């Protein structure tokens, strides 16, 4: 909470000196997850199993984030604050292999779903300045406030199985560090039109010291709509 208040205090300084103040909505849709495990064995935190894992794993899932957006620009530069709700309902999937008899491996699939509020300060830069379609790059540091009571994990015998063997599992929730709030780093690129912008973002979780070292990031589509309140423009507008 203190981090958010501190950002608002800093952000308000930008509002004071910025040229235009825009408001809008931002949506992130779909996620292509990438998990990286430091080692090829994961020890479960709430059972006494251990699993062999592929160090790099990818899974595709339905996620949705909607945010209220406040944007202040200074010519090519702009600063945005996005405050919204993120839900990963389809599940971050991980394949876990448990050694059994006859030199065989029994594959389990962990499906983690989580949701929470996300606050994202984002810095944008227009890479081109064409009239209609402008290419931009962005970097941000979203802060995720998890709604822990809604975090779920299921273990199933197949990647598409909806019926989990067990519910209320915690084989991977702790491994991914999804049991506490965390910071991300955001990198994005896209195209901006007058009120609409769309692009691609890569959001990577920053691990805390207490985390296991497993990395988690995801690629998502971003669409933003912002209203241009012309009466809010101040001073002389800098135009290139």
């Amino acid at each position, binding site marked *: *909470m203190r981090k958010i208040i501190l950002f608002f205090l800093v952000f308000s300084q930008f509002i004071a000196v910025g040229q235009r103040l825009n408001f809008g909505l931002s949506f992130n849709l779909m996620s292509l997850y990438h998990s990286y495990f430091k080692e090829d064995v994961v020890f479960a935190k709430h059972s006494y199993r*251990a699993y062999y894992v592929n160090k790099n794993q990818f899974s595709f899932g339905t996620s949705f984030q909607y945010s209220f957006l406040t944007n202040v620009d200074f010519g090519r530069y702009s600063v945005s604050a996005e*405050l919204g709700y993120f839900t990963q309902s389809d599940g971050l999937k991980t394949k876990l292999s448990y050694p059994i*008899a006859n030199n065989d491996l029994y594959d389990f699939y962990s499906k983690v779903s989580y949701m929470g509020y996300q606050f994202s300060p984002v810095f944008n830069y227009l890479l081109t300045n064409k009239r209609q379609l402008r290419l931009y790059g962005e970097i941000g540091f979203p802060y995720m*406030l998890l709604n822990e*009571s809604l975090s779920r994990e299921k273990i199933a015998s197949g990647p598409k199985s909806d019926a989990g063997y067990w519910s209320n599992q915690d084989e991977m929730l702790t491994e991914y560090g999804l049991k506490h709030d965390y910071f991300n780093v955001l990198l994005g690129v896209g195209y901006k039109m007058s009120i609409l912008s769309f692009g691609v973002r890569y959001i990577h979780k920053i691990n805390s010291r207490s985390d296991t070292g497993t990395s988690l990031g995801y690629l998502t589509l971003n669409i933003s709509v912002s209203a241009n309140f012309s009466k809010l423009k101040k001073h002389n507008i800098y135009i290139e």
Partner: protein
Amino acid sequence: MKYRRTYYVFYFILLFFLAVSCRKKEADTQLPWRYDVPVLYSADAYDYTLRQIDFQLKLAVLRGNNKTEEAIEEYINISDTSFKFEDYIFNGGWVRFMKNSVSYEGNIVAVPYFTSIMLDQSAIPESFDINDKMNQRYQAINGFLNRLSGDGEVLISGFARNGKLSGNIEFCNSDPILTWDKATALNLLELTHKTGGTSCLFDALNDMLDYMGNIPVQNKSIVVLLMNKDDSLGTSTLESVIQKAKANNTKINVIWLIDNWNYVDFTTFTELPARTGGFLIYMGDIYQVSTIFYGLDKILTNKVNYYKLDVKLTIDSPNYFLDSYRTGVKIYYPNSSYYKWSFIPFKLFKNARD
């Protein structure tokens, strides 16, 4: 201006909810399925004649309660009638049992221990590939390591001759551990796919006893998860191992898992613990392995109470008892949802503990 005010209202309402977050209850530990199991501490014949044996059994009875996260519970309300000795006819004459008394006792003096857990990795004639298809034993032993209380030092190893191990014995940890250790748990996991070869039980025990010989701990033991009988290809024998264990003041505890009784070396399995002061556990089902290992720390530190049974065994003429006699007892579990009874085989010796 009006719209901006409305926007800010929504903005700060959302901000308010940022401060509100429900805390989720920590997930329960998901222990594997476990069954009840008895632990035979001792079977002592205090009066052994040709036609009558008076003996005493000390048995702990562990409960595999799957409704709780608690790893070990003991049955404390077992009635006398739950312990059954079955009379039978032998060579035309009756062999009869009579229970004199059953009491529930404990001598809980917690003692630090040093133990070496040895896993039978042999595959001939039986292997874990037959008896433990889903690798319950890894969860059981890893659970034991996770629950170490700091009262004991532990070594873990597997043994087999001409199998997939690096020698007759392959250690999971080169130094004893007091608490869970990642490298040890990883090596233990890799033992799963290292079954093969024949059992070098006596040679492995001999080598382990040599290793533990100089350890200055009073409560020393070896815990063997056994399947196959010794292959007789080595230089050590049952008698030499027992004598060395006694000389080194080391108990040999046997946890016995078999599928086919024809492969059982009953003499070895019962004499090793009986003559070295160790305990014997006979597992009729692999689901009992979790109950045993989750409670092993308590068993090794003498924190488990036991039932003491005083029994008289008689045999009709002209049959007579020899220097040792093999029999067993059935325990019927009260109110168990999973396992109705267990059978414990044991052996009575005329000259006990020689």
